[in-house]
């Protein structure tokens, strides 16, 4: 009968109701458990599964010479890895890989037989090798791309550029000095993945990718650098010298056009080298300059009117006693003019000039020329050299310093000081980086020539230039003469201190030549330093010819013609 419920029917309904309530209760409990109690943990787990956090890093900035020629840049190159656990036949894989990677077959097989899930087989190989491997498509062998700093010119300018490490951080040279500008922007991005692990679309898709590092444009000229390195290397090899340095600067601006250091090294392969090899000796190593220091002594004497070019000095026939020690000249000289003292590089004449100046005045001028202090060039590792205060000078110091002893200088300090004479007496700050630009080419920083101070008057600089021209026309630097050009310069031959005895060595010398050309309107100031040449060690013999060869080629390259010099000379009349 309808509407009437019998006993068993009602009880079934109750049972159903209870079952349903229990079911829904269970679902409700589960929901509360998942959505409320475990919500935080499960959300985090889900995020881990479908989101991927990736750190993107912009490429390291490029370094170019003053004409835009690339000297250092970042390139993505393939690295090859193996998954030993996924390999069925390691021997066969090694046989295929060996000719491509140029690694011995047994070496590869040994790696592939390891009980590991990942092994590197070859890192940062050539792109062609990666492409060949991809074509082979071997099971259990993979290729990933890694950023590598590349120096396409090999050893060219290596001591200035320095190098970056495996993690892309600047470790030496400009790479280290300009790390903050060269380094690309780092940014962490969250990527969404689908069920197959493919990236769907990143959160913040509209965001710009991380910016690459800034690009540096140097004052260095690749061709001048090559000429300097080639000539230096040839000379160092020929003279069986320990090493050498050539620095070429633009006297008007202080811009460094070339900085060559021997022995050279390849920044693409520094792993096997010691720090001694990549040290930039042009600014980290000090040496006693010897006679090149007479340029500064002469400048001070002329400026202070202690000497005139025609002032007569007695050469003491090649021997003079100072503070119970004897000063020698390389040849016996009687009465000579002050100009001849410089041109013939008389130690006795220089000592007398220094004595005429006095300790305080000489010290003041040497400081003013930049000795005993860093030039503040934009390269790491520069030392200040050694210039003692007059209160620490001994009885012989005035004479010694006047002839380039008892003073420690760097090649960069010396070329800067002589460039000041070439620049009408104004000392400029040397620099290597001319411009910093962002990835769009917008100028971030422009380095303008910076005057440090006036050291001597233009008149003194011109008078000294005439005297220094005499060094090359009929003095010790005759081998530096460049046909068709007026060259001003000074030779220097310094004995090195023997570390075993603590006295001057009779076999170890530093031969140098520093000068500028064309003397009437200098385009280049250059120093050539040859460390411990064997055989003839005179600066005039070993270094002056290098100055001539480099100077001649560079003037040709810069398009400075001999006709121009005639016009300049005529205009000055």
């Amino acid at each position, binding site marked *: 009968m309808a509407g009437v419920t019998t006993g068993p029917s009602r009880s079934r309904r109750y049972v159903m109701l209870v079952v349903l309530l229990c079911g829904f209760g269970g679902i409700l409990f589960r929901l509360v458990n998942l959505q409320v109690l475990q919500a935080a943990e499960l959300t985090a787990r889900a995020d881990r599964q479908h989101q991927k956090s990736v750190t993107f890093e912009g490429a390291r900035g490029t370094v170019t010479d003053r004409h835009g020629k690339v000297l250092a*840049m970042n390139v993505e190159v393939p690295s090859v890895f193996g998954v030993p656990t996924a390999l069925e036949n390691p021997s066969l894989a090694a046989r295929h890989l060996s000719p491509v990677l140029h690694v011995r077959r047994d070496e590869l097989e040994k790696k592939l037989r390891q009980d590991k899930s990942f092994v590197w087989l070859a890192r940062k190989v050539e792109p062609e090798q990666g492409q060949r491997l991809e074509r082979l498509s071997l099971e259990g062998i993979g290729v990933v791309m890694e950023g590598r700093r590349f120096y396409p010119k090999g050893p060219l300018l290596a001591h200035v550029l320095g190098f970056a490490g495996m993690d892309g951080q600047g470790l030496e040279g400009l790479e280290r000095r300009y790390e903050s500008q060269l380094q690309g922007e780092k940014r962490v991005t969250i990527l969404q993945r689908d069920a197959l692990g493919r990236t769907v*679309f990143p959160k913040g898709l509209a965001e710009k990718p991380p910016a690459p590092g800034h690009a540096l444009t140097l004052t260095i000229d690749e061709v001048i650098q090559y000429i300097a390195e*080639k000539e230096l290397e040839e000379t160092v090899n020929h003279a069986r010298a320990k090493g050498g340095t050539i620095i070429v600067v633009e006297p008007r601006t202080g811009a460094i056009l070339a900085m060559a250091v021997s022995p050279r090294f390849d920044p693409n392969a520094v792993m096997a080298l010691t720090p001694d090899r990549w040290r930039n000796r042009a600014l980290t190593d000090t040496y006693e300059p010897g006679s090149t220091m007479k340029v500064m002594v002469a400048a001070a004497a002329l400026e202070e009117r202690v000497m005139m070019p025609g002032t007569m000095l007695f050469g003491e026939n090649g021997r003079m006693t100072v503070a119970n020690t004897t000063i020698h000249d390389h040849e016996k000289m009687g009465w000579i003019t002050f100009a001849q003292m410089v041109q013939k590089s008389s130690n006795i004449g220089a000592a007398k000039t220094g004595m005429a100046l006095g300790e305080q005045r000489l010290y003041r001028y040497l400081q003013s020329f930049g000795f005993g202090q860093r030039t503040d060039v934009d390269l790491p590792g520069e030392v200040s050299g050694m210039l003692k205060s007059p209160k620490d000078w001994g009885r012989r110091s005035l004479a010694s310093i006047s002839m380039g002893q008892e003073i420690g200088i760097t090649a960069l300090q010396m070329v800067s000081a002589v460039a000041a004479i070439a620049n009408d007496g104004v000392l400029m700050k040397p620099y290597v980086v001319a411009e910093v630009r962002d990835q769009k080419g917008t100028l971030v920083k422009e380095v303008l020539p910076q005057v440090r101070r006036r050291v001597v008057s233009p008149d003194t600089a011109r008078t000294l230039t005439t005297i220094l021209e005499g060094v090359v026309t009929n003095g010790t630097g005759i081998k530096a003469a460049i046909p068709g050009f007026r060259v001003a310069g000074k030779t220097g031959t310094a004995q090195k201190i023997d570390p075993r005895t603590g006295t001057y060595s009779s076999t170890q010398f530093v031969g140098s030549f520093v000068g500028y050309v064309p003397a009437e309107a200098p385009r280049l100031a250059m120093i050539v330093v040859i460390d411990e040449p064997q055989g003839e060690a005179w600066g005039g013999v070993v270094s002056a010819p290098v100055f001539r060869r480099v100077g001649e080629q560079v003037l040709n390259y810069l398009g400075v013609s001999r006709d121009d010099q005639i016009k300049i000379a005529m205009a000055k009349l």
Partner: protein
Amino acid sequence: MKAVAILAGMGLVFVFVWERVDVVRLGYQIERLKTQKVALERERDQLQVKFSTLTAPERIAKVATEKLGLIPPQPGQVLMVRQQHEAPLSPFAIEQVRVARHIKE
């Protein structure tokens, strides 16, 4: 009226679903183009390195001397060519050109 409402509702659902699908499709397309861009940039950088390596002065000098048998110019063999607005070459310079050619020959 009811049918219109149902149709409109279905249309809205369709637009919504289509839009979601299209967003995913465009996401894949963007990702593919980005991969392509990275590959092209990589190729450009590799070519740039290759170009820089091949144009290194050291290599050019080596090829010039060893492969082509060239030698550096001797003093007097290099003459600056004047541009039109500059003064013409002097008879002395013309003679130098002649001598330089003679030496070369």
